[in-house]
């Protein structure tokens, strides 16, 4: 049997690597997603033009060697705007989902482990939030707080939190009566220690799968909000905003809406590949124990 050695960080890295290479679906998804991340990180190097540079003589230009994906109604380079738009989508999506993951998982574990009135309270609040589709909820929050990067993140996080509460609570309830969790109490561990050190490490695979799937949704919601004019304010390039602009000229310049839509499609597809692959890889019934 292999004997894992080294630091805790090293072991975690090894474990993540094993999961990341568990099947071809995850690998394909990760490669695709990392490609998008690389585009966002190195946007200034990849973009062929300044995404804000207007050239009123080149309005609504068709794809050419100068403007690979054409230009929009202000004569801005679509390719460069998509490249920079990746930053907005990823930053908002990742921040929102990370926030929701941390808050939601903690609340879910708390509610499942403690039960009683805590569970009632968290459960009711979760149900209320779940009653709204995430887009509608995000819409309400942004309409109320006004569109800004932070508010968008908050809105999407709020819409996603209940998903993590649910996915963390169910396995916690199942774990609560296991001997080794009961033993934590008998050993004099505080509820907080038991939850963080013993419950959470047992349920994080489920949470991870949820996070990748909801990252796709978060990016879609961000684009949808931008589409209806509640995204990050123009002229900052966002994919949703670009689709909207393209939509206004859809009868004459179809590519304006098509290319940013394709960008969203690629990201969502990559994340769903990862999520599906993870679900297979982490399913205990399919997991091969070493």
């Amino acid at each position, binding site marked *: *049997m292999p*004997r*894992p*050695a080294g630091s805790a960080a090293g072991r975690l890295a090894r474990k993540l690597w094993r999961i990341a290479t568990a099947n071809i679906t995850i690998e394909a998804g990760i490669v695709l997603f990392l490609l998008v991340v690389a585009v966002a990180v190195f946007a200034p190097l990849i973009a062929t033009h300044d995404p804000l540079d207007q050239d009123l003589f080149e309005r609504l230009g068709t794809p050419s060697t100068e403007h690979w994906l054409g230009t929009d109604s202000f004569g801005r380079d679509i390719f460069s705007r998509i490249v920079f738009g990746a930053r907005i989508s990823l930053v908002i999506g990742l921040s929102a989902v990370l926030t929701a993951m941390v808050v939601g998982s903690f609340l879910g574990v708390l509610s499942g482990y403690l039960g*009683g009135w805590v569970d009632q309270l968290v459960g009711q609040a979760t149900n209320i939030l779940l009653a709204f589709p995430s887009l509608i909820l995000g819409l309400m929050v942004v309409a109320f707080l006004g569109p800004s990067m932070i508010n968008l993140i908050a809105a999407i996080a709020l819409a996603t939190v209940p998903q993590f509460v649910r996915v963390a609570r169910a396995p916690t309830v199942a774990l609560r009566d*296991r*001997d*080794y969790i*009961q*033993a934590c*109490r*008998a*050993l*004099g*561990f*505080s509820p907080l*220690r038991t939850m963080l*050190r*013993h419950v959470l*490490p*047992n349920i994080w695979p489920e949470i991870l799968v949820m996070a990748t799937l909801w990252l796709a949704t978060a990016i879609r919601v961000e684009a949808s909000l931008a589409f209806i004019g509640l995204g990050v304010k123009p002229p900052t390039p966002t994919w949703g905003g670009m689709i909207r602009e393209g939509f206004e000229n859809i009868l004459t310049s179809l590519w304006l809406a098509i290319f940013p839509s394709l960008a969203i499609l690629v990201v969502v597809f990559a994340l769903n590949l990862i999520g599906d692959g993870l679900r297979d890889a982490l399913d205990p019934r399919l997991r091969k*124990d070493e």
Partner: protein
Amino acid sequence: MPGDPVLSVQGLSVQFRIGGAWRAATRGIDFDLAPNETLALVGESGCGKSITCASILGLLGGEGARVEGSIRYRGREIVGMPESELEKIRGKEIAMIFQEPMTALNPVMPVGEQIAEAISVHLGCSRAEAKTRALGFMERVRIPAAPERYRDYPHQFSGGMRQRIVIAMAMACQPRILLADEPTTALDVTIQAQILAELRDLCANLEMSMVFITHSLGVVAAIADRVAVMYAGEIVEIAPVAELFAAPRHPYTQALLQAIPRVDRETVTLRAIPGQVPAIAEFGSGCRFAPRCPRASEACQAVPPELAARGGPEGHRVACLAPAPVRERAS
């Protein structure tokens, strides 16, 4: 018994809310535990052994459970103690070993860290110190190549080895009292004997008292100083081990001993006890064994008999209105 008892249980009654009514799962449990003493709680499933243990750690309570009576650990009352105080006693002063070694360990945490965690929580020492101590206890419970196995996960160990790790976890803070809830039931007989010997040595070396729960009288004989026989939530007889095996006085104890096959006697027909343990809702007000007892009289149905010497030596008490007469022991 020399010295003040480390644990003194008086009139312990645990009640559960079942279908809207409070039902007493145990009634009037009384016993003392002396320093360095091993007391066995024997009885069939559901007689209240584990509940008694759980209430000693203050694990019961909250919705649906009610604990009455008194449990004093070195003079401090456990019943009603706030959770934050209990956390300091659990694991450090009073530790528990669970029955099932396969499920008592966290599957995603290296075993060494699980032992070290209890140490660092209660003794507040550094990680390195906790690790050294944990390794010391892994060696103490005879886990071969302990340093190499420190990072291994529970599934890489056999059942007997896992139970040793569970024992090391419980022992790690050198508690005064060890509550062992059927620690050998899930193991095969040879491993069982090894673990019992291990527990006996550790208790002696670390000056620990132990409450040992089992339903095997053979195990009782191997490990205990005194034994309390429980039936339907009550202690029916409590006596030093030799005394109880030589001269049982309660009809239930007698019936239990008659139901065990013995290799040192001519084969006789083993006798079963007629009837069944009553359900918790069917307990009468009198002696709970009366419906199955060959010596039951009208009086037995009326009031519960108290645990008392009833003509025998002070250390041998029995809760029966018609106990077997005290036999002169041939010595």
